[in-house]
């Protein structure tokens, strides 16, 4: 067993193990201890994830590396080729760290919860395992299992600890997500039964983790030759060799191997149904499954209800992490496995992104419930993510240049993290108010700046991060995405730029109604006490991170950029190799133009 396998497994399963311990040994009535225990667990996970970049952990995440790091695999259900396969790269690491951070802060925000505390903590910790697992799993079956593991605790957390319409919201959330996972399952099976590992070369099998490279006793990785030799005598290896001899395909759930098949073989390009290829169908099914989670219009209506009814910490998790799974699925699974379909549907993807941006912003403008307004702002902000992924401009317009798409894709990834910080903060800030006055009606607030100055200052800072103010994290992601769109489609670029007006509108209007003004207009005025230290320690780190990533975004980009760029590069090259050109341009002219922007054309 290598360090990596132990470290990553502990990272994922520690919360679940603690949940089990709580279930078995936590005495009744020890609510406070239960919360403290859970908080410590989430903090350990946070520290473990951070040590991977700050040193100190036996497993380090190397910045500047594009490849999958610390990849390891154990056979889980060998007869179906299902592996316990985990690994981490620049796409998943920031999301893992975000998950750990938001979970810890959300657990700290869970103190006001007094109902069935033990059950709450157990479900919360299970949820964290599910979320971390989704971001680390590289086997599609395992991914699917984690995806479902995350779903059930969420259902109960909303359905038991939620607001007045909690049953409705919980069942709506559950059915929507389940619908998405069923579509995903169909796509998984399509891909599985058409996959064939024998079509991949030996070194591809090595890099995708099909042939595991176990660590030797001194901690170094086994040599390739040794790994292959070991593998050949293992059950999986013998089955593989038998299959090759019998000329039978070997199916796989390995996401990395499926990516290679999607990009370098024609396994998925066979015709499926209705004249569309298998790849097309798989893409559409997966994409719909993932944008339910993002969520994008028109599959978004579960979100406002779920947020409004969910307790504050669960809203933080929901907005801060769960929505990111949709985006993660698109960048990790949809695009690399089904690139042809992704290219064909690029306008649809971008269109959905832009429609969500506009739709969410308009809807947010019309809300009178504070939390619903923030929920719709999430729809709008996550639209940027989908748009950023989709701007496949490598061959569009006047020259072959994948840099603008890289810009968009990195911007989308950045926006995911930025939104995770700002939206978790916004929901927390709404929760602080709700805990005090037990209502969220935007028209019945006012004058809070005078009553709760520190809280109001922090809240305004966090809401400005959501507004996309320069110097705060929201700006970078939005501006990167928006700037990348022009070279893909000018019309979409103009519409996406117009959203900045609406965003300013709904956020400033809400701030005016809640924080400014002379007097508080709602009930329980006496309950408006200044922010407590616990609340301060949740809000202040979020604002500090918002400022850090706004002023020095490379603190984040340096980690994610190599992996994202490598993927874009691969897909862009593929679109060039397969002759996907929107416009017929001779390659020479295009190449020259790309290298020499400054070349002047004479009149």
């Amino acid at each position, binding site marked *: 067993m290598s360090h990596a396998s132990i470290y990553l497994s502990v990272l994922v399963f520690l919360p679940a193990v603690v949940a089990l311990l709580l279930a078995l040994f936590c005495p009744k009535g020890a609510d406070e201890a239960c919360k403290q225990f859970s908080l410590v667990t989430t903090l350990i996970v946070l520290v473990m994830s951070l040590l991977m970049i700050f040193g100190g952990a036996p497993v380090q995440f190397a910045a500047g590396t594009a490849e999958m790091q610390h990849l390891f695999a154990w056979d889980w259900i060998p007869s179906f080729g299902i592996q316990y396969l985990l690994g981490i790269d620049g796409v998943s690491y920031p999301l893992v760290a975000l998950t750990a951070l938001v979970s810890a802060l959300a657990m700290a925000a869970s103190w006001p919860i007094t109902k069935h505390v033990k059950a709450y903590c157990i479900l919360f910790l299970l949820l964290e395992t599910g979320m971390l697992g989704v971001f680390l799993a590289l086997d599609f079956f395992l991914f699917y299992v984690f995806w479902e593991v995350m779903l059930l605790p969420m259902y109960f957390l909303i359905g038991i600890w939620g607001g007045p319409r909690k049953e409705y919201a919980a069942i709506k959330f559950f059915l929507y997500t389940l619908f998405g996972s069923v579509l995903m399952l169909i796509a998984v099976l399509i891909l599985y039964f058409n996959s064939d590992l024998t079509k991949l070369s030996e070194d591809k099998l090595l890099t995708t983790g099909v042939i595991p490279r176990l660590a030797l006793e001194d901690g170094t990785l086994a040599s390739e030759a040794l790994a292959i030799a070991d593998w050949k005598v293992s059950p999986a290896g013998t089955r593989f060799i038998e299959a090759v001899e019998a000329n039978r395909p070997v199916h796989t759930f390995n996401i990395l191997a499926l990516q290679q098949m999607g990009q370098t073989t024609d396994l998925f390009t066979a015709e499926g149904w209705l004249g569309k290829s298998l790849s097309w169908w798989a893409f559409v099914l997966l994409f719909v499954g993932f944008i339910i989670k993002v969520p994008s219009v028109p599959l978004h209506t579960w979100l406002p209800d779920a947020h409004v009814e969910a307790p504050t910490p669960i809203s933080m998790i929901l907005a801060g992490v769960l929505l990111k799974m949709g985006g993660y699925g698109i960048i990790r699974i949809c695009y690399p496995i089904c690139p042809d379909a992704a290219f064909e549907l690029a306008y649809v993807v971008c269109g959905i992104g832009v429609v969500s941006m506009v739709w969410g912003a308009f809807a947010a403008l*019309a809300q009178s419930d504070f939390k619903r307004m923030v929920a719709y702002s999430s729809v709008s902000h996550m639209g940027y993510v989908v748009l950023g992924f989709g701007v496949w401009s490598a061959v569009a317009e*006047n020259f072959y240049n994948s840099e603008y798409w890289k810009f968009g894709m990195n911007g989308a990834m950045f926006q995911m993290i930025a939104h995770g910080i700002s939206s978790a903060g916004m929901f927390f800030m709404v929760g602080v108010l709700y805990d005090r006055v037990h209502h969220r009606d935007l028209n019945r607030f006012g004058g809070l700046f005078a009553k709760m*100055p*520190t809280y109001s200052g922090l809240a305004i800072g966090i809401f400005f991060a959501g507004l996309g103010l*320069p110097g705060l994290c929201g700006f970078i992601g939005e501006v990167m995405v928006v700037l990348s769109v022009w070279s893909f489609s000018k019309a979409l670029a103009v519409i996406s730029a117009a959203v900045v*007006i609406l965003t300013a509108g709904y956020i400033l209007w809400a701030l*005016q109604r809640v924080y400014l003004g002379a007097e508080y207009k709602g009930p329980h005025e006496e309950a408006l006490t200044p922010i407590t230290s616990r609340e301060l320690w949740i809000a202040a780190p979020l604002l500090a991170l918002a400022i850090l990533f706004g002023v020095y975004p490379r603190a984040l980009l340096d980690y994610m950029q190599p992996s994202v760029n490598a993927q874009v590069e691969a897909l862009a090259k593929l679109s060039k190799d397969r002759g996907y050109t929107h416009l017929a341009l001779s390659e020479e002219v295009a190449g020259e133009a790309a290298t020499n922007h400054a070349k002047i*054309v*004479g009149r």
Partner: protein
Amino acid sequence: MSSASIIPNLLTLAWLLPLVAFAVICLGCSMVQRRQGQVPYELQRRAGLLSVGAIGAATLLSFIALFVWLGTHEWTGGAHGGELHPNGPPRYYADDWYSLVEIGSLKLTLGYYVDALTVLMFAMVTFIATCVHVYALGYMHDELHEVTDHEVNVRGRHLHRPGRFHRFFQYLSLFSFSMLGIVIAGNLAMVFMFWELVGICSYFLIGFYIERHSASTAANKAFIVNRVGDFGMLIGMMALWASVGTFSFGDIPQGDKVQPGLFSQLRNESNDFALVPTVGFVSPQEESADAKYPGYWLLTIAGIGIFCGCVGKSAQFPLHVWLPDAMEGPTPVSALVHSATMVAAGVYLVGRFYPVFTPEALLVIAYTGCITLFIAATIALTATDIKRVLAYSTVSQLGYMMLALGIGGWVAGMFHLMTHAFFKSLLFLCSGSVIHAVHTNELPLMGGLRKKMPITAYTMLVGCLAIIGAGLPIAGIGLSGYYSKDAIIEQALSFAKLNGPHRVLLLAPVLGAVLTAFYMFRMWYLAFVGPPRDKHRYDHAHESPRVMTVPLLVLAFMAIAAGWNVGPLCITGLLESAQPIGTAVGAKGSLAAALTIPAESLSHAPAIKQQAGLWAFGAAALGVLLATVFYCWKVMNSSEVASTFRPIHRLLLSKWWFDELYDWVFVKPTLAIGLGIAWVDRRMIDGLIHFLARCAKWGAGIVGSIFDVRVIDGAVDGLAALTWGGAGELRKIQTGRLRQYVMFIVLGFLALTFAALGVAFAR
């Protein structure tokens, strides 16, 4: 250290000092407030002093930088013939501090671009900011104890609240930092970032009296209207980004190589520094169709897009509506942010970005400025709020600057930006002094105040004379506004001579000059001359304390002398040495072929100079005369004139109904669409979901009632009935008679035996 490193370093330090002040005040006071529940007033006062100290030190550094620049660079020392850069292209220093985002060759960076214009702007901004900071120490004195806000009623009583002195200075410091950030910015992305930051500072400062609903609404309006402009700016940025791939103004050294910036890519030496689109602008359609001017359209659109941002920030038509409302902020804010610096940032950006504007884009700029200066001047004629008169006059003067830039008068426009900053901040501070004394903004409630507050009255008179461009055309000497306004009208004349159809671009500024003189002197007369119209207020009026009058005197001096040609300090000379490469020679339109932007040097020709000077003088004199007739001598009654021209008067009084128009055309429909979309979500999408859920339930019901009940339950029940029936039949043989049982046993035995035998034989 060479000047190449010393000047940027000085300016960077000057730029960062206010940020430090902001951070210290913000964090320090928040901590104290959290601990004690209230920031002690003594600490608040110190916060104010810290802020003043920071901006004062920044001023010092900026002036050192200015003198270092003057000492180390060739400068022309006064109006020369305007020949094309005898010493080569204008000098600048540009570099990046660090990159925010770096993906391949695409970089968003923070960096500086320092040329003579930057140095001059730094000196001007920090100088005025210092004056305003000092003035605000006095003006905001009320905030150093419990404040009673007479404009806000809570439960039938005036609002009482603790003072917020430190907050005001905290925002002022942040504003100074952001404003200087725009000036020092080395690329368009950084300009945009600080552009938004000054926007948010302006939001905080306009809404400083957060309890007043009108203030927070005005703050929202200012920010959102600015965002409309920024939307256009984003489009311009996207077009440039996708076409050129860099936002840097200047060439950035990278190791031993140089990465060419926007300006040198678009104005290449091989094209004699004429503006030519790069290949990136050329769309494939154009390339294949052999268009006449490849990429030219896109470049023009990019320029107009960037200009949209300037329209928002500089409150130009049609986005001028936010500036008058912004007067809800405290008066020092109006002086610094909403007249001298931030609103001038739009003009500054047009000036900075000048090499990228095609002649067609310049024409758009000129017409926007022309319309703005006229509309705003007319509204100022009837305004009765002293600050709103000044606000509209600011809008109008910014229109002058835009017009000047649009018709090729780069130096004239930037010069007017400088002089206007001095006299307009002076005018606003004077108005603040008046408001401080009489506690009202309404001119009809003033009158005769010059006896009570002579320093304010006469410094304000200086400001009025400066803004109307008072001077002696024959001697060629006057107040600062005289030089800059004359330069604009000269350029307009020179432009009109070459472009007959665009003659209105000359007519408007001359007519505007009449209106300017009229409304400025109307304001002065109403405030300071004649009998007091509100005895009570008059009796309580008093001259302001020295901390407020000293800045007035300093600014009054600058308002007089800023245009003079004294020793090394000659603004026009410095500006001429900063004129962007290739823009001093004029240009010809390509899409609009008849358009000719004249070289600025042509406007210095004696014939044009004399004619323009006379027109400007005549216009100003006429305006002052009219104002004197109406409001000083009272030979004619202004209300009679107003009732004679009733429709026009109403149009002006209601500000051309722009607010109402926008409310009906933009705000209400936007909210309606929002409600509509929320309705679609709730009724249509969720309705569909609920319908599906009901269908599923109904289907389940069908399955339950028919299949389950009839088929499955039927089968089960049938089996049960069968069993029951069979058992009932079998029961009949349970008779209890022994003989019968014995017979059954014998029959059963025989049956089993035969069966066994049968099986055996079958084998």
